[in-house]
């Protein structure tokens, strides 16, 4: 004889904590069918219907046939929504492995798409930078000079401060090591070559990425979200020509200028440490200057400046690209700005590694012989 169905009285007092106990009770009864009676419930907030749905799903997973009685029609409709929609979702769910492969492929496709977009953007920028001056209204000189002031002149204080501190640190670190070998006379050479060849450029690039790259991304991102970009497109104005080229040209101009400035200030930091009597290095002012000028070759300066121009291109492209692909309002602007700085710093490091490797392989690296 088949077992009688178990009847569960679903009341106002029922809460999530009781679901497990009810399921255990049904298991103990060994009945294949469960009937939930909701007649005793006085009010049916959505949460109560959701709890009942949760209970019914547990019965279903346990292999029990269930039925519900004493429930108003509108609550039954809510229950059907919960149960039907979930089952529909389960039916449409794909196997986990397929989903992983699919999402990996999507990511790869998105990455390749980004590379292609970045390439097209760079192509457009280069075109308008070269062709702009020959077209009517093609090159915005006043906007470019404004950008040079914003990105370059206003960066001078922070670049000076950080470069000076870096010069101080480098000279002190060098003194600590070289004192052991009685080679303190090498300090100007070490400080000069390190700063001019690598550190001055790298530090300037990181500072510009953090200060100007982020501000370019935020500015463009906010223009995108407020539909200003769409308005420009609708007016038939080239965004690249009108908005991007002035920023791009400004960064390419200011990067070498800021780098030379950082080099001079950094070397001056080393000078301050070396000639200060309290540091007990015992170097005279003319001696330090002579040794620095001896150590730094014009070729090293040019290599540093080449890197700085490359850094300018990297920062401008990434900042502009991140700005133009912003979506999602204030939150999106924040994310794009963060990505702009992070990607710029990573790409700058990779570019410097590439240049250093290239010059090392071709024997063009800095000399450190006394």
């Amino acid at each position, binding site marked *: 004889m088949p077992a009688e169905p178990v009847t569960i009285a679903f009341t106002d007092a029922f809460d999530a904590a009781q679901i497990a106990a009810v399921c255990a009770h049904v298991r103990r009864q060994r009945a294949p069918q469960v009937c939930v009676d909701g007649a005793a419930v006085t009010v049916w907030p*959505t949460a109560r219907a959701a709890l009942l749905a949760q209970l019914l799903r547990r019965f279903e997973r346990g292999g029990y046939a269930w039925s519900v009685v004493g429930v108003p029609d509108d609550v039954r409709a809510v229950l059907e929504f919960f149960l039907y929609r979930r089952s529909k979702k389960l039916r449409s769910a794909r196997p986990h492995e397929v989903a992983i492969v699919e999402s990996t492929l999507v990511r790869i496709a998105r990455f390749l798409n980004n590379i292609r977009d970045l390439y097209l953007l760079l192509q457009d920028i280069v075109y308008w930078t070269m062709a702009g001056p020959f077209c009517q209204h093609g090159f915005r000189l006043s906007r470019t000079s404004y950008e040079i002031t914003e990105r370059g002149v206003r960066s001078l204080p922070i670049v000076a401060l950080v470069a000076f501190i870096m010069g101080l640190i480098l000279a002190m670190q060098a003194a600590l090591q070289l004192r052991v070998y009685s080679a303190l006379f090498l300090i100007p050479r070490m400080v000069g070559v390190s700063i001019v060849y690598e550190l001055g450029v790298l530090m300037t690039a990181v500072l510009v990425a953090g200060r100007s790259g982020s501000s370019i991304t935020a500015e463009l991102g906010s223009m995108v979200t407020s539909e200003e970009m769409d308005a420009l497109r609708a007016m038939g104005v080239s965004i690249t020509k009108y908005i991007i080229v002035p920023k791009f040209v400004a960064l390419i101009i200011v990067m070498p200028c800021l780098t030379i400035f950082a080099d001079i200030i950094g070397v001056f930091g080393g000078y301050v440490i070396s000639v200060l009597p309290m540091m007990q290095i015992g170097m005279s002012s003319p001696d330090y200057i002579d040794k620095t000028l001896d150590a730094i070759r014009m070729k090293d300066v040019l290599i540093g400046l080449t890197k700085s121009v490359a850094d300018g291109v990297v920062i401008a492209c990434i900042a502009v690209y991140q700005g133009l692909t912003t979506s*999602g*309002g204030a939150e999106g602007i924040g994310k794009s700005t963060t990505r702009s700085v992070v990607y710029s710093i990573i790409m700058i490091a990779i570019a410097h590694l590439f240049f250093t490797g290239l010059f090392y392989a071709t024997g063009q690296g800095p000399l450190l012989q006394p």
Partner: protein
Amino acid sequence: MTAPVIEVKELVAAYGEQVVLDGISFMVAPQQIFVVMGGSGCGKSTLLRHLLGLYRPTAGSIQILGTDVTRTKEEDLQPLRARIGMVFQGAALFNSMTVAENVSLPLEEYTDYPDRVIQDIVDWKLHLVELDHARDYMPAQLSGGMKKRAAIARAMALDPAILFFDEHTTGLDPVMAAELDRTILRLREKLHITVVVVTHDMTSIRRIADRGIMIADKHIAAAGSIREMEQSGDARVVNFFMSHEGH
């Protein structure tokens, strides 16, 4: 007679010396769509903030669902606020959260339901405002009307007894505004809630209002059903109806 869900008696509201509302009294019956109307700067939004207990009045009393919000401490108002939903003029969705996260926020704050139950409730509320497809969208990806509907879903998360709307049709085109009004009517019918709407949009008022008041010069210039108010001899009311028609 059923007890009113909102009862305002002789309310006086002022910012410092400047009196904004003076001697406002009205009642809202259960499951009614009640409209507070009036021109810009007449004190509609001030009245709404007093109803929500955000401002304390200079004089008078406000009973909401049996609680006098003018004499209840801020911390003791929390249980009442869980029974009230508010849809702000600009939707006020949290931009850093998805639509579903916005709707689940009050549930996570006020209840200790399991996550699955919360997700069920969120899906149901989004279904009621016809935003099933937008649960994982960010607010920035929504149109103006969708934002308002998401805000309604959030306001309804805790099954409120009263839903307040502040200028719900502002910024929407006529089609979206009509759609939103239909949503309000549908919700009242399905969920049996009381709705209080602050607006100056006459087209919307005609579509949804059961009763209402019109505020002018700090006082109630007209009260009753829209038809009753239209027949008012008060020149301010006549002017308002004529100048805001079609807005």
